[in-house]
């Protein structure tokens, strides 16, 4: 009883303090002075990874637009959720931003795992930072030459083919299970810890099929170490224009793309968000950024915060549907 009263008192004080802070920070962050110091862009993956590269390409251009350095800070861990959890609990003043991918925005939560935050109530979505397709690639020496033939082969030889993904509940795993369920065939899933060992095993012929990112595999495709069957993006990838999409291969409406969202802690002043949105969209039209994006196989996107939020909802609906249909949730 006593502790309850005490708890309530604590809460009231805490709420008051938080409200006070919010007022102060809102006051300090008027759009005309924003930003008057360095802006931190939190990436939930280690330096050198694909998310980090995207963040650094954009950060450089946004620094010019905003007139203040945008510093990439890596807080890797738990599919990117460690970094986003940090952003979610940061001051909503526009000085701590995050790059949230498919995993930390949707998949981790949708497969029944705690992320440490609720994206709808704790984060604001500023914009989409480009999209990226996956490629369904096979080891060399496999008989089938097209995706149709591959799925036919799997149907004729049930349980013979194996496919690897970069982990349970990752986009590659879910996209492939989804495709297999549409085609009504089975392959044995071999989960890997990230792309590196997966690439090793498909090149070495230890696993038959691998779901890989297009930039991570374009060079291996070019060198003939792996055979690309199809890309999962709605359009063909500029990195491997001769490879058909899954849709072209007879699965109308099938797309699976990776993307990143620029997020801020919820409660970031609207004018600050607009400023960030403009800077992001300016970057998306810059020639250098577009060139770097093309090299990385990324499709640029221009979105308002509202459009980006709608995009998130739409993607979530799709992936939650897939996860529910396949019964993949871990708990």
């Amino acid at each position: 009883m006593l502790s309850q009263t005490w708890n309530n008192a604590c809460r009231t004080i805490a709420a008051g303090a938080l409200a006070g802070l919010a007022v102060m920070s809102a006051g300090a962050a008027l759009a005309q002075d924003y930003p008057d110091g360095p802006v931190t862009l939190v990436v939930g993956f280690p330096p050198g990874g694909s998310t980090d590269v995207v963040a650094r390409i954009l950060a450089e251009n946004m620094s010019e637009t905003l007139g203040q350095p945008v510093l990439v800070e890596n807080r890797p861990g738990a599919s990117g959720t460690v970094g986003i959890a940090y952003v979610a609990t940061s001051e909503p003043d526009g000085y701590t931003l995050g790059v949230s991918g498919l995993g930390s925005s949707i998949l981790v939560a949708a497969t029944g795992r705690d992320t440490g935050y609720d994206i709808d109530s704790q984060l604001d979505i500023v914009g989409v930072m480009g999209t990226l397709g996956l490629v369904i690639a096979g080891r060399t020496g496999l008989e089938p030459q097209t995706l149709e033939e591959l799925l036919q082969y799997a149907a004729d030889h049930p349980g013979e083919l194996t496919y690897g993904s970069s982990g349970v509940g990752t986009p590659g795993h879910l996209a492939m299970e989804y495709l297999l369920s549409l085609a009504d065939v089975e392959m044995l899933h071999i989960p890997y810890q990230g792309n590196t060992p997966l690439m090793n095993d498909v090149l070495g012929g230890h696993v038959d099929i691998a779901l890989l990112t297009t930039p991570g595999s374009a060079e291996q495709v070019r060198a003939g170490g792996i055979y690309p069957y199809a890309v999962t993006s709605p359009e063909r990838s500029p990195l491997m224009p001769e490879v058909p999409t899954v849709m072209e291969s007879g699965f109308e409406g099938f797309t699976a793309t990776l993307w990143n969202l620029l997020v801020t802690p919820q409660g970031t002043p609207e004018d600050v968000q607009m400023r960030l949105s403009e800077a992001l969209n300016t970057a998306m039209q810059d020639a250098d950024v577009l060139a770097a994006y093309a090299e990385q196989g990324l499709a640029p996107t221009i979105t308002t915060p509202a459009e980006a939020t709608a995009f998130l909802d739409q993607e979530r609906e799709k992936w939650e549907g897939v996860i529910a249909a396949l019964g993949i949730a871990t708990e």
Partner: protein
Amino acid sequence: MLENMALGFATAFTATNLFYCFLGVFLGTFIGVLPGLGSLAAISMLLPLTFYLEPTTALIMLGGIYYGGEYGGSIASILLNLPGTPSHAVTCLDGNPLAKQGRAGVALFITAIASFVGGTVGIVALMGFGPAIARIGLSFGPGDYFALMLLGLVAAVTVGGGSVIKGLIMVVLGLLLGTVGTDVTSGEFRYTFDFLELRDGVSLVAMAMGLFGVAEVISSVRGSSERKITQRVTLRSMVPTRADMRRTLKPMARGSSIGGFLGALPGTGVVISAFLAYATEIRVAKDKSRFGKGAIEGIAAPESANNAAAQTAFIPTLTIGIPGSATMSIMLGALMIHGISPGPLLVSDHPTVFWGLIASFWIGNIFLLILNVPLIGMWVRVLQFPYKFIYPVVIALICIGVFSMRTSVFDVWLVVIFGALGYLLQRVGYSPAPLILGFVLGPMLEENLRRAMLMARGDPYRLVADPLTGTILAISGLLVLWAVLGGVRRWFGARRLAKYSVDEA
């Protein structure tokens, strides 16, 4: 080949590249000396700076930091019993006793030579047989990795140098700690206690720095009055005796081969190389009791191994585009940012990058030898500072280093916890070295075994029937048998001896 090397040296010998090569190896040595700050942290911090450099120059500098760190890490291990990086934890085992015997100079000299030998072997392998080694690496499937890790684990039990039982206990504790995190096969969380930070497992750097670094500081503070190092390391004191030299030749050769081979396999890396090289030395030594008390082989082998591995780690990274470690991923990231896609065609598409980098490795290793041998006095000057200044700095550096790895305060707490554990272990006479090896090998062992069993559709016969896997497993079996037989023979021998002496009495 000659043409390629000429191209490489032409690239590496420009004033800019020489400067950045020197800068890289110098920074690497410096960061290696500082406990806690590893090359991974340094490279991630410096990555943004390299955007403004030519890609080859950027890689030359980052590469220099990487292998320079392997040189530098041994200095604090020998002098202060504080490993600069996890792979140097093993160098402490015999390096520090040598220093306590007043032979720090010899230990540092041998380390520098062993590092140079290892580095050279690694570069030769990279240059001459890079693509071939990379292909061998690819042919290693999950079953083979499992067998290899098991072999490592069997060897690991001997690393502690002392009692096999204590070694086993530590290995098992390491294996248990290695199960913390996300289970790769099912995606379930194990022992994460609702900490997001534990989902990727316990940080190796935090663990190694706590167990070795913090623990050493605590025990030194406790006994600081009795421990004073007055010795000066002069060039003269660094000259090893002829016996020292004779004793280190074979360990260097063995260490370089082990490191060169393991470094080229993606995922194994410098830590495992150093530990296994050490374990091998104990295995082949006639008098095992010298280890842990200042055996010169005990520093020569692991130091040549980790440097060889640091060089051959570039084999899969550059020739097939598969980064073997987190540090190597950053290197590839640096290339990607410059618009160079790493992959099997890198060598033919961008020969200046590849051969320039290799040429810079030669230059860098020579710089390192120069930095390490005559300038050792400079590093050793650290010793002349009173401990009351050194230790707070060391603790601060460990915390900064560990924090900067993942920008994580959580990991700093881990250092504190492992520091306490390490001190406790030290007090009760357990060596944390096998624990680290168990921790590194365990998750790889489990992951690869389960993957191999998945691929074999749950049939263990199919796993063992693979010629490579079967052979490696058989070697492990023989090792175990050897150890058991040796134990039994010693036991009987001891009994016979006891009986004999009883009779005589």
